[in-house]
């Protein structure tokens, strides 16, 4: 009971904080929208080309937007000492970290899902791939947050960890990108996509169960 209390208290705290620091939340979303709207301008009036590369564009932008938002996951808690207090709690640090990641996904990942249909229509994506796009984003973006959390936890103690963070995290993002954008592409061509979706689901389950432990351990190392 009290663990559930702590879990939801952390989620609520982070959501309230996000509400009071809107610019930090809006930044990755704005980036996502801007990148996608710039593509048609750059490529010119070639609707078929746009349609063909739409899944890739949207997924690459989502991935970069997720990476852009990562630093805010633990930065302010690290700077003001709240992280020490969270790790000093008698509750398992991995679960409290999971609560933080969930809150982070709700404010940075979920908005991408909400604006994605609009942007997909903008790129001329067909309705059948649109549904699959949303499904892959729903399965894939939490994985990005969970994997990213490990990287941020490792680099939050460094003064300029940004570059190392991208190098650490980007290779781990690639499988998600490949399977997710492939699924959307296949769905557009009317081919079966069960395999890709299964793989994404397994990524998500693995990340939910396995990522919080190394994240908590890395945070303990970082506050040392």
């Amino acid at each position, binding site marked *: 009971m009290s663990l559930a209390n702590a879990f939801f208290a952390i989620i609520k705290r982070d959501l309230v904080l996000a509400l009071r620091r809107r610019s930090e939340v809006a930044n990755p979303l704005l980036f996502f929208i801007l990148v996608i709207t710039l593509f048609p301008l750059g490529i010119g009036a070639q609707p078929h080309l746009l349609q063909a590369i739409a899944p890739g564009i949207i997924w690459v932008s989502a991935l970069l937007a997720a990476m852009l938002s990562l630093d805010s996951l633990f930065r*302010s808690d690290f700077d003001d000492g709240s992280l020490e207090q969270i790790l000093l709690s008698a509750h398992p640090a991995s679960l409290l970290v999971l609560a933080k990641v969930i809150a982070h996904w709700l404010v940075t990942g979920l908005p991408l899902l909400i604006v994605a249909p609009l942007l997909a229509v903008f790129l001329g994506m067909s309705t059948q791939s649109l549904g699959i796009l949303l499904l892959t984003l729903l399965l894939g973006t939490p994985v990005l947050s969970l994997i990213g959390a490990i990287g941020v936890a490792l680099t939050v103690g460094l003064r300029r960890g940004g570059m190392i963070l991208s190098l650490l995290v980007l290779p781990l993002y690639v499988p998600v990108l490949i399977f997710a954008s492939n699924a959307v592409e296949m769905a557009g061509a009317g081919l079966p996509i069960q395999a890709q979706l299964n793989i994404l689901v397994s990524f998500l389950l693995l990340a939910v169960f396995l990522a919080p432990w190394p994240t908590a351990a890395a945070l303990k190392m970082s506050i040392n």
Partner: protein
Amino acid sequence: MSESLSYQLQANNLSCIRDDRVLFEALSFSLSVGQVLLLEGKNGSGKTSLLRILCGFREPDVGSLSLCGDAISDSSYIADLAYVGHLEGVKKELTVYENLKVSLALGQAGHYSIMDALDRVNLTDYDEVLVQALSAGQKRRLSLARLLITKNILWILDEPFTSLDRQGIELIEALMSEHCAMGGMIVLTSHHDLSIQGVDVQRICLS
């Protein structure tokens, strides 16, 4: 609190080495219920490092620690301690009340309710105020209020008197002697001379 009479913090042969410099070595002490341990020493003599070892943030390079028989790696060790460091550990975008609410959720309820604790540290009527509007001394008192609302035995305080005025210092000293009388123990560093009535104060000078 008869069962807590057996509580004892025991440090055996602790050493801390930082960047090839030995900060302290072969440091042993034991602290029982109702006692205060005051760490003294120059800047950079390893006071904060020792406190962070006691919190479990750092591992001692040599030696071991136990709190009433629990090794530092046990979760019951962590459950019994509360730490106020250089960083206040409060979010400036949250109100005073919201901050304490989160601290309460992370620990176990203690002797004071949130409102009583705010009264005690002279922050009555500040509960709806954003922390960023507080002065440095008020923030410090808020972070000390956290000690009151959660159940804990060992207080670890790193320079608790920083940015407090004279009344603030007297207040914290009163809280500390109250905590010791209720069966708690305290480890702190301070440059301020401690005057706590009726409490057994041990001093260790790190040099």
